[in-house]
């Protein structure tokens, strides 16, 4: 079976042509793959090497260097919570503890929790601290009291 769909292959080809060198296309192509499949699998990297001549060592270096690429199968909703200075001053750690409680409550209900939580460096929205991303959606002024509401919008507790 083909590793990539024809649409994705077309996008890959587009990026390979778009920049001065093929190698420059590695970051955008990994974004395309992650957006489509949720994460970057070994078979994707092998295919990029064999079919598109992007050296697997170069791709793997990039995929592991940048923190936004996922190399393990993700949960449906990836929460990136800023745990840098401003957000922490404004209560990020306490709020993250609440996120964790939500996840634990979900799991206690015997269900596989669709959320994962990671602390990340500054998201560049300190005026709305504490801030978090759920997948690509930005949420601001999150606090221990309102964080569950945000999570419920994505997946209410069972």
């Amino acid at each position, binding site marked *: 079976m083909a590793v990539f769909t024809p649409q994705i292959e077309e996008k890959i080809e587009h990026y390979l042509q*778009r*920049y*001065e*060198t*093929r*190698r*420059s*296309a*590695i*970051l*955008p192509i*990994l*974004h395309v793959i992650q957006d489509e499949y949720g994460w970057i699998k070994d078979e994707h990297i092998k295919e990029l090497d064999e079919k598109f001549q992007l050296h697997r060592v*170069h791709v793997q*270096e*990039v995929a592991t*260097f*940048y*923190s*936004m*690429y996922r190399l393990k199968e993700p949960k449906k909703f990836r929460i*990136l*919570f800023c*745990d*840098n*200075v*401003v957000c*922490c*001053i*404004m209560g990020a*750690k*306490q709020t*993250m*503890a609440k*996120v*964790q409680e939500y996840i634990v409550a979900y799991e206690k209900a015997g269900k596989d929790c669709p959320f994962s*939580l990671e*602390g*990340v*460096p*500054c*998201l*560049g*929205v*300190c*005026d709305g*601290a504490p801030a978090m*991303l759920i997948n*690509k959606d*930005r949420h601001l002024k999150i606090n221990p009291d309102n964080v569950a509401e945000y999570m419920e919008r994505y997946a209410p507790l069972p």
Partner: protein
Amino acid sequence: MGDTITKVKILTQYEGMSNSRSLSTYKEHGGYEALAVALKKSPDEIVSIVKDSGLRGRGGAGFPTGLKWSFVPKTEGKKYLLCNNDEGEPGTFKDRYILELSPHMLIEGMIISAFAVGAQKGYVYTRCEFFDEIKWLDDAIKEAYEAGYLGKNILGLGFDFDLDQYQGAGAYICGEETGLISSLEGKKGQPKLKPPFPAVSGYLGCPTVVNNTETLSAVPWIVKNGSDAYRAIGTEKSPGTKLFSISGPLKNPGVFEVPLGYPMMKLVEEDAGGLLEGEELKAIIPGGLSAPVLLPEDVKDLTLDYEAIAASKSMLGSGAITIIPKRQCMVELLKLIMDFYHHESCGQCTPCREGTGWITNILEGFFDKSATVDDIDQIYAICQQMAGRTICALSDAAMPTVGIINKFRDELVSYIERGTERERFSYI
């Protein structure tokens, strides 16, 4: 100065307008007029105007922009203009605000700057997490192409320039100009050895200028209004306006455009509305996480310009002002700062790779009660040997650490002596 300061709006002139991001709004209020002016002049004239304006790099280092441009060799061949829109310095969110208000201002600034330095191709390197902003800028670039501001023979005046946006993938180090170049080349965002400098050998070995979003966005106004008009704002050595992003426990945190030389406490108390009820000022980080911390007495009469903040042994940096409230434990703060640098060190140079990890490691001892007062001196010694010893300035992350040790040593010592147990959070 005080209350008499008139606030000229340059970068934030589209604030409050509906549809401010659209080409029509931008044009309605004079957008792309500077471009027509610029393309009728010679590139050298533009470089001179920007030189004379005294515009300094707004990304953090404050290097004179016109001077940076003049390092580009006048030879034929491929040259690049890169916009550093990888806003990642914690506490900084000013460039995001420009994209939110008027992405066309950046585009116009880039076309003029590219004309000045002889670049035929430009990239805006935007941090990954700015998903909305990336879309806004992409849309604006598309509009600009359709309107003939980008591409071949711009405005029929014979200048060709192509512009594209490139999305980062989560690495603070790509905000360092050569790290950005490596990343744009599709590699790990590791800074490059200098010499050679990017102006001579940058992106793919071609002469390359890297400027910050805010710097480039100021160029249209300067070209249109002249260098004297820009110099009339701000101080003699720090002319013009600057965006300050101010955050922390404030009534009205946000981005404010003020002339350089503006009193810091006026910004805190008036523009940002002062601290929230019940909060008291303990310290201020004046220029992004890498700037050493200042005490209330240091900032009482401090003005926001490169020279004044440098004189107070910190730096203006990216103009990110972080308010540290009284309740904040400085050991926790120090750990947060070092966790960040530890996480973001690219790992290339040994002193930074090992030093950031080592300091974080020692700081762990503050929380498991194994630390001794000697550890403070050891952190200090490690910082002294890291700073300035690496390819890029990330190892100068030692500076805020030294700053905290200098100003809050007593608090660190008493933390160790009390043996405080840290509040642990299970998410880690």
